């Protein structure tokens, strides 16, 4: 019994290998052919507001780090971009039903949509840190130190949970005096220096239709070779 099943299994594996070798085709392939359709065609990209990653001040011409990356990627594939804006849930739903080819909007590896979409390998890691003006010395656990954070952002909760700091909500980080909780890339701009306190790490990803692996590999190859370029973009776009 087992021997026979085994022979069938190995024969199938061999057959698959032979098929792959003979067809000389590129591996992996897309079950729905997204890459072939997009190349020299149109890329349907879902965007949702997420400063500084996606800025929808002009929805027909989105700004921010990710739309800029998408433009450069589209150039490489000689593709037009069709921007579609919506909420994350709308966009992921459309992606799942094959109506979009890519969704960007400050998504991270921890996104709750990870079962609904293919996520790229994290193309950039950013850190939410506490910065302080040069020359100030703060206690290691920030005990009792007032630290400013952007009103309504996760930083307030993280400050209270992970440090002894007194979280102070502000509307604009630029207005804050003293220590500030901010994305690491903003510190030079704010004239601050990192204190060594890290509140969170974000691993940034983009979302694609599940299982369109040739498409996924094409985008990942594009992103993974551009870490320096992406950091420069972030430094530029991260400025309010």
């Amino acid at each position, binding site marked *: 019994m*087992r021997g026979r*099943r*085994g022979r069938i*299994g*190995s024969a*199938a*594996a061999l057959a*698959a*290998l032979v*098929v*792959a070798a003979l067809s000389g*085709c590129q*591996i*992996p*392939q*897309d*079950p729905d052919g997204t890459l072939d359709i997009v190349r020299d065609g149109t890329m349907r990209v879902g965007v949702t507001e997420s400063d500084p990653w996606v800025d929808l001040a002009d929805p027909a011409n989105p700004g921010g780090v990710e739309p800029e990356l998408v433009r450069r990627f589209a150039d490489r594939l000689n593709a037009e971009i069709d921007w579609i804006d919506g909420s994350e849930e709308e966009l992921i739903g459309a992606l799942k039903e094959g109506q979009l080819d890519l969704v960007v909007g400050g998504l991270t590896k921890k996104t709750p949509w990870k079962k609904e979409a*293919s*996520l*790229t*390998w994290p193309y950039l890691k950013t850190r939410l840190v506490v910065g302080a003006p040069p020359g100030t010395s703060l206690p290691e656990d920030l005990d009792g130190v007032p630290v400013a954070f952007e009103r309504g952002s996760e930083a307030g909760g993280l400050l209270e949970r992970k440090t002894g700091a007194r979280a102070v909500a502000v509307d604009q980080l630029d207005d804050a005096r003293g220590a500030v909780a901010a994305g690491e890339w903003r510190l030079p701009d704010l004239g601050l220096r990192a204190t060594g306190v890290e509140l969170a790490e974000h691993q940034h990803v983009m979302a*694609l*239709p*599940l*299982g*369109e*692996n*040739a498409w*996924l*590999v094409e985008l*990942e*190859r594009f992103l*993974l*070779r551009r870490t320096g370029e992406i950091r420069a973009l972030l430094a530029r776009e991260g400025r309010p």
Partner: protein
Amino acid sequence: MTLPGRFELPPDKQDLHRKARRLEWMTIAYLVSATVLLYLTIGQSQAGKAAMIEDALSLTPPIAWLIAARFRDKPPDERHPWGFHRGVTLAYLASAVALLLFGGFILIESTFKLITAEHPPMGVISVFGEEIWLGWLLLPALAWSGIPAVLLGRAKMPLAAELHDKVLYADAKMNKADWLTAAAAAVGVIGIGLGLWWADAAAAIAISLDIVRDGWTNLRRAGRDLIDTRPATYDGSAPHPLLGKIEDTLRELDWVQDAQARLREEGHVFTGEALVVPRDGEDLVERIEGAARRLAELDWRFYDVVVVPVSTLDKRPDGPQPQVSEAGRAPDRST
């Protein structure tokens, strides 16, 4: 006559036992490496996940075996008059239940993925600055998970027979079958590469069925041990031939009119009682002790068989016994 103390394997079996122990340690090191390698390369392949879980669960029989090997050396004490031979059954039962549960879980999950037509994503990974499609890394990882396992299984199989070791047997059998899992998973991965999204879930279903079957077989075996089923050969295919031999040996003694034995397996060894009807009461104590020694010499597995004199033997409840069986043949109870 005293109750048996520390159990020791005969010298030739001790060598085999040492060899088996070395193989089991090698198996553990190997399975850990295979599991880690798969963990790093499976991405979101369902078939790869199934293969990884099977590798991880294959760790339980060698671990159970090694724990039991340690306990077996421990002599019986006041609180544990039967010694610790049985401990291995516990571990064996636990591993069988784990196989069943995990196998069932993957089976349901994979079926669901197939029905909902979920397309498995598999992208690239950056290795030393080169982006490589995960599938190209998963295939060699699967080969590592399949091929050495077969060699280990083949090496362990004859030891299991010589040592009358069912856990070792189950372990060797699982290892030998491991390449099938790896081949099925490889088919799934190549399927993903060719854009055949269903191949992955289908391969995972095949693997999970195999895991469930392993679990079910092991569970039945552990259950049989726990209710003291008649001793069987190490692979469970036939009643153990020593069963008939013990009664024949006793009947061959000139002072014995009739004899009947009841044995159970405890790890490697058999324990139980042999009832004998003596022709007369002369020198009964010495004769009984002599018979017990004789049984102990008959085979190393008769480690703790108590001989009890009785005046008559009733028929066994389940058949026309006691019977005069041919030498070396076990009573047939298939009817």
